[in-house]
């Protein structure tokens, strides 16, 4: 086997290095903690200082050679060597003396069609503006480019929009760059079929939809090449002498120890977080001290390297991209082409067969932490994954996206008036997982809600005001009397089952099936008669009362069990925090412990044979805790065939139930779940499984009657298979 190359950073430099090292036979792991900074580009590239990367960018990354000048949505013109295919026809010299229809979209202020048409006229293009309404939206203002692009990922909507664009009489149609975020190839085909003239998309300044598409292409090329990617934050490296022998990356829950022969440092400059100026100039991972220039030169601060791209004092590290001192794309020097070329060279050097085993004194270097919320760049990448922003316009609700919500923390008076909007966040954490500076947006939102509730309770939305009172008076979040879940009550159990509010209220059948499953496993267990774990308070940044904790501790101790299981990830999170000395696990963890080798397994397998399912990762299990594999291992064990949805695992999309949205805006919550169910239906699976009562309930709400897919908890399905009561 070749060398093990660990590449740190998923921008174009890191990806180029990984692809090149792979090509030379290395085993490659690419570690990245957020979206690569190439996502924050125009999606076009200059090759200044990076001619060697032309082949890679064209053949493997999907850019096209179309050197020239392009009109941006801002009205400016930028020179590009390579662009994404949808821009190719927009090269300005090719438009002279031709007639172009410039399309603006109602409610999308990112493009002013009349202004752009005037600017094209000045360059000798015969341009005319047109305005078109986007189908399926009930909002006529503040549409974000990302929300629009995701709306148009629905090819049917894109087709309707295309059909509404006036046809005939024009040589070309110029569109704003929002025609699909993930399905843009398919959307492009629809445009080809529907429009009567050839079309192109304008370029856009970052943050741009084409930039994100380019980043997707990079990740896709890694997958095709067989590069292992790991979404985790490198916290520490260990060295023997001058060589890195261990890279420790933290994925939020688990530390991954990688043992590299060579490391490629492609962590970017300030945006990527590879360089910090906060305590003099410093490279943030290895702690290299950097010289800081004056004036604009400050922006070129970076690592100096030797002829073989090594930083001083490190034998097996190669440096590529913006983390290196080599101009600044912010000053118009280099950029994607140069970073890619440096990546190629770093990858080739790193893939050479490993030399002698490193030796010398052992030491560790801890990485500098990221700035977090305070460091918000306003890059809007968070908007591209926000499930609320995605659907708010469809139900006519104004929503400014995660970054917009963050601005409330800067102003007391605005926060006081923003409670209603703040209450719409589902706390799914997708934005935080994407954030280049490591902002924990969803935690900030919860904290702001808590601050508002404490400082001006009257300005908090009613459901938020009521949660603490209702919990106090009824012991559950619904404020009604909950019938206890049926099942054994004993004082000598090995395992205690905590059903939680949502399961006892909405999903009693699932609770029953889980009890059946535990019974069929032949273990000694008891249902816990507790009160709400206090999880609903998390959405307000508050903690449960001491009384509630005491009650639940007593209820668990009454079963005699030292291990507690819940199917609700929120309960697991809360209880494991509050009940010291009791082992709290999620139902999937319990099953992974008990199911293999159990007597009932054969029966379950037999009854489930031939079933095709898809699986929805609950945010609070996945993104909150990094638990993705357990469910998949169980599904494999019981022999069901899993077809993944487009958004699975780390990229899982929210079901719409989180953050208390269902209580505040049920319509929006349902709209989000509809989108998720539609994605599940696309897979052709017979059942949409999950393992969270809130997700389960909301996905059931989002399923339309004509959609044949079953929505179930994984453990409930197993329970029914164990007792032979499958539908």
């Amino acid at each position, binding site marked *: 086997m070749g060398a093990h190359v660990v590449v740190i950073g998923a921008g174009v430099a890191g990806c180029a290095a990984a692809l090149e090292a792979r090509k030379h036979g290395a085993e490659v792991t690419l570690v990245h903690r957020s979206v690569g900074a190439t996502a924050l580009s125009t999606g076009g590239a200059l090759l200044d200082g990076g001619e060697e990367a032309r082949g890679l960018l064209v053949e493997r990354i999907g850019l096209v050679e179309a050197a020239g000048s392009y009109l941006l949505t801002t009205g400016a013109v930028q020179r590009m060597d390579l662009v994404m295919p949808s821009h190719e026809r927009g090269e300005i010299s090719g438009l002279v003396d031709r007639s172009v229809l410039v399309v603006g979209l109602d409610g999308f202020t990112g493009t*002013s069609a009349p202004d752009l048409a005037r600017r094209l006229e000045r360059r000798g293009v015969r341009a005319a503006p047109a305005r078109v309404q986007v189908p399926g939206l009930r909002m006529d203002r503040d549409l974000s480019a990302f929300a629009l692009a995701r709306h148009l990922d629905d090819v049917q909507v894109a087709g309707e929009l295309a059909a509404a664009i006036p046809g005939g009489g024009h040589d070309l149609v110029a569109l704003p760059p929002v025609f699909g975020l993930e399905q843009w190839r398919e959307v492009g085909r629809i445009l080809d079929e529907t429009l009567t003239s050839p079309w192109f998309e304008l370029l856009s300044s970052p943050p741009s939809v084409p930039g994100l598409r380019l980043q997707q292409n990079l990740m896709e090329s890694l997958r095709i090449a067989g590069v292992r990617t790991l979404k985790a934050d490198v916290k520490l490296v260990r060295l023997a002498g001058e060589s890195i022998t261990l890279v420790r990356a933290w994925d939020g829950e688990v530390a991954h120890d990688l043992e590299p022969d060579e490391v490629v440092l492609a962590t970017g400059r300030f945006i990527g977080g590879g360089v910090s100026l906060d305590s003099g100039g410093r490279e943030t991972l290895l702690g290299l001290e950097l010289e800081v220039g004056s004036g604009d030169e400050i922006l070129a601060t970076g690592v100096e390297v030797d002829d073989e791209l090594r930083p001083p004092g490190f034998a097996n590290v190669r440096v590529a991209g913006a983390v290196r001192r080599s101009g600044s794309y*912010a000053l*118009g020097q280099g950029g994607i082409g140069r970073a890619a070329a440096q990546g190629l060279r770093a990858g080739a050097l790193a893939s050479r067969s490993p030399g002698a085993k490193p030796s010398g004194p052992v030491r560790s270097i801890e990485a500098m932490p990221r700035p977090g919320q305070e460091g918000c*760049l306003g890059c809007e990448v968070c908007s591209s994954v926000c499930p609320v922003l995605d659907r708010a316009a469809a139900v006519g609700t104004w929503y400014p996206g995660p970054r917009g919500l963050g601005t409330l923390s800067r102003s007391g008076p605005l926060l006081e008036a923003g409670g209603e909007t703040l209450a719409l966040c589902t706390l799914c954490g997708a934005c935080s997982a994407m954030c280049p500076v490591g902002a924990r947006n969803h935690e900030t939102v919860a904290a702001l809600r808590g601050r508002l509730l404490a400082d001006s309770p009257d300005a908090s939305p009613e459901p938020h005001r009521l949660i603490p009172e209702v919990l106090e008076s009824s012991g559950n979040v619904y404020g009604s009397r909950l019938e206890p879940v049926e099942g054994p009550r004993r004082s000598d159990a090995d395992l205690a089952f905590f059903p939680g509010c949502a399961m006892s209220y909405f999903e009693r059948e699932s609770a029953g099936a889980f009890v059946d499953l535990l019974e069929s496993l032949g273990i000694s267990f008891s249902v816990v008669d507790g009160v709400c774990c206090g999880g609903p308070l998390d959405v307000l940044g508050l903690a449960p009362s001491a009384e509630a904790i005491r009650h639940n501790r007593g209820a668990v101790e009454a079963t005699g069990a030292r291990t507690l299981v819940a199917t609700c990830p929120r309960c697991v999170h809360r209880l494991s925090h509050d009940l010291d000395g009791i082992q709290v696990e999620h139902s999937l963890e319990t099953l992974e412990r008990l199911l293999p080798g159990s007597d009932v397994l054969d029966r379950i397998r037999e009854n489930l044979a031939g079933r095709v399912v898809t699986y929805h990762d609950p945010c609070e299990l996945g993104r909150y805790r990094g638990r993705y594999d357990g469910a998949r291992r169980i599904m494999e064990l019981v022999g069901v065939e899993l077809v993944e949805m487009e958004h699975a695992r780390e990229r899982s999309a929210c079901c719409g139930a989180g953050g208390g949205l269902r209580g505040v805006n049920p319509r929006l919550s349902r709209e989000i779940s509809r989108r998720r169910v539609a994605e599940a239906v696309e897979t052709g699976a017979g059942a949409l499984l999950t393992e969270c009562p809130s997700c389960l309930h909301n996905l059931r709400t989002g399923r339309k009657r004509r959609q044949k897919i079953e929505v179930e908890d994984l453990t409930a399905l197993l329970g029914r298979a164990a007792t032979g009561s499958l539908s």
Partner: protein
Amino acid sequence: MAEKVSDLVGSKLGSDAPGTTAHEPLPGSEDEGEVSWPEGLAGWEARALETRHGTRAGQVAGLGDLSRVCVCETVSDTELRFAVRRLFARTLDDLRRRTRMGMGPCQGSTCAPRASAILADELGLDPATADRLMVEFIRNRLRGRLAVVTHGGAAQEELIRSVQLGLAGEGE
């Protein structure tokens, strides 16, 4: 004290007219009764208008297009037009002083092109003049920023500059 000073100044200037500043409401402080907000305006957008325009906020909101131009500071199209028509704004810096437009983290990189288009529309400026006003504005915002770049502002500056490469007149 203000009253005594103005009386004193008045007497020095030989005027004995009674001072009215204590009774005369300033624009935006008049009692306009209950404000009727346009449908669909979020509470925080209304509050942003109130903090800047007082009791005239409802009047501003009712003027037209409520789309946000400056996302960082919640400034809408209609507020900028109000500032041109009623508050005599003639440059982007005027607009900034009257509305806070461009004073948020992105320092005008998103809103400057759109604000200059609005200014051009209201005042009948040609695109070249509008671009010149925008570039002037962007340059003014830059002054003073470099000094804080080494205190947590570097990433922001890097992004702002990258975006501004794509603003009319800057990238060419």
